[in-house]
């Protein structure tokens, strides 16, 4: 393919790729939501009065914190069930849901740590502990979003997997470079957007004082 043909082809497949990127945003959002909910409960457990509860909280947090999400991707792919019974029908678990499960784990570790820090700051009378938590949370969303790109290794339908299908038409290093760079650009724009959001939150917080 000539450069022009490559660009035309890429433009034609952009809606397809964007759909894949939508999955990445969704996977990351769901993982953040579920992981934060569970992680905050774990954080509360770590600060509980009962010693066994504290211990359990610590163990879960350190498990979630120390196991790489890339390894968890393979784990859920191999070990989690493929079909679940829903009433009378068998429902297939889509791979992107499995990828979400893999990403929930590190988010639990993060939310447990940040939730704990929030509790301590709150107890010591720091007023903007909540804002600190929100800032860290938004930044972590970016990290989880980037980690969602690894879902392609287990065959989940997301942007890298779709990019590979687009590239399969030609398979030249040039077209591969172009397609991957194009996709990278979206991540970069999302990242810059999120950074700008964090900065504006930060300056709003300082202005509030």
């Amino acid at each position, binding site marked *: 393919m000539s450069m022009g043909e490559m660009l035309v082809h890429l433009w034609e497949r952009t809606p397809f790729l964007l759909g894949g990127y939508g999955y990445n945003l969704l996977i990351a959002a769901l993982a953040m939501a579920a992981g934060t909910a569970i992680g905050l409960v774990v954080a509360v457990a770590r600060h509980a009065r009962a010693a066994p509860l504290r211990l359990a909280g610590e163990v879960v947090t350190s498990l979630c914190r120390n196991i790489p999400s890339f390894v968890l991707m393979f784990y859920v792919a191999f070990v989690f*069930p493929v079909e679940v019974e829903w009433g009378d029908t068998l429902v297939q678990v889509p791979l992107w849901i499995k990828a979400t499960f893999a990403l929930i784990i590190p988010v639990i570790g993060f939310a447990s740590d940040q939730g704990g820090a929030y509790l301590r700051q709150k107890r010591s009378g720091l007023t903007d502990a909540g804002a600190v938590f929100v800032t860290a949370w938004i930044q972590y969303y970016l990290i989880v979003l980037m980690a969602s790109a690894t879902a392609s290794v287990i065959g989940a339908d997301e942007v890298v997997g779709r990019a590979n299908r687009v590239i399969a038409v030609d398979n030249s290093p040039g077209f591969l470079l172009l397609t991957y760079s194009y996709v990278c650009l979206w991540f970069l724009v999302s990242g810059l957007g999120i950074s700008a959001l964090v900065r504006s939150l930060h300056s709003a917080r300082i202005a509030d004082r």
Partner: protein
Amino acid sequence: MSRPAARLCVMWLALLVSALWGSGALAQSGDGRLERIKERGTLIVGVKGDYPPWGMVNDQGELVGLEPDLAALLAERIGVDLELRAVTSANRLQRLDQGLVDVVIATLGDTAERREKADLLQPSYYSSGVRLLTRGDFPYTEWGAMRGRPVCLTEGAYFNRRIAERYLVNPVIFPGTRDTRLALQERRCLGWAYDDTVLAQVLAEEGWQNYQLSLTPILETPWAIAVAKGEGDRPLGRLIGNATVQWHRDGTLVDLQSRWQLPESAFLQKQHERWTSMENGEYRCRRTDSGDFPEACLETTLSADRSKIELPGWARQLRMFTGLDLTPLFDPFNAQRLVQGILMTLAISVASIIGSLVAGVGLAVVDHRFQKGVLAWLVRAPTRGLVAVARMTPPILQLYIVFFGLSGLLAAWLGISLSSFLVATVVFSFYAGASNAAVIGPALARLSRQHPDTPLRDLLAKAVEQSFEALVSIMVNIVKAAGMASTIALPEVISSVNTLISEGGDATSLMTLLLVFYFTFVMVVMALLNLLKKVVVS
């Protein structure tokens, strides 16, 4: 904390733990698969998407090829709709085992190891051997000459282990055929050892005029349609076996072969003669009273190259009580591959930690030094751009871009190919280094405002010391991310474990073991870095 909240916590934890450990058991129930297919009204068949003309993706994104055609014939025979799913050599038997697909028709060679993982149906519908795709100027004539030389392999192929063991080649393993093709073009190996049926197709494509099939075919193997373990003797297995016999008798397979422009296969010819030969007015080859085909009518499969592994007592006990099956680890060849994988993981982790510190300090210093004038535009702005790109794009895409894209162009223009270790180290160093710079930079700026007269070196040491806690967590993250290098054929521990699973190891056990390894490894790295922190601070 209140009682209900405490109870909620315990519930969540129990849920989490059971989700992690107990989930394997839910997958299957005991009904015959054929019943389920009829209930569902759809036959789900796993076929290849990257193996023309057997299974490939057409311009409309549909799966087509000889094997999808066979799948359609099966669906028609059962009287249900057909759904095709793309599978790869590495995952096809897992997809079957997981129940994601009912049947696999995906260029699956019939081997003893695979018969332990799934029911491979008789008779076979095709056969192939292994040859080496090389450049035209390939000087060798024997497989023995490949000893110690880099040979590209595609993950999941049954012959990979035999080639590595028998011919002692230096295996360079990629996750899919696309990656392996690119690797061969980029001179990452002398040749690609793979199925001769595929290699012949590749040779026919544009851009492969300067390549050839070298060395004599080895390891000739019949291909089988597979169903999940236990289904072979049930109605689904019987139905497919009978269909295959009919395809040999009425020439369906020979017709498909010519429709998909495959060279004539001696195997199909032999099968046609065998299954149509008559004796006393009946077919000589047909199911006996027991329901099986006579031995003489079937291809003999390759026997496993190694003897059964004898587990030590404690490992047998462990398997009995926990289900943890460590069998693959007691095979010396596997154990050696696993140890090499672990060492490689250690090496890439250490290299990336050092690289990320160097990159972090370097980027922070550049940012600090060139604050004014033309140099700020020429040096500082691009550095900041690099930091943003390195931090905010997924490292897995960075690996692909550098390894297959940039390095591919380098190979085409200058004939240089960058090793996967080098590419991974550079990518991880910049990815984590950019984050390091984002921590060191502000500390450096603050210190230099406070002590404008102190030399840069002292300021830098102080800045690193002050940000050490943040640096430790970034470095721990890079150790966790390093496994991604398995996607560019770095033979590290995740790739070793995946290889063991694709060769028949128990997935749940090996994956659990991998989790335990990583958990321990990350804990040790963290402890060492904290120790280093103490030394640095004191």
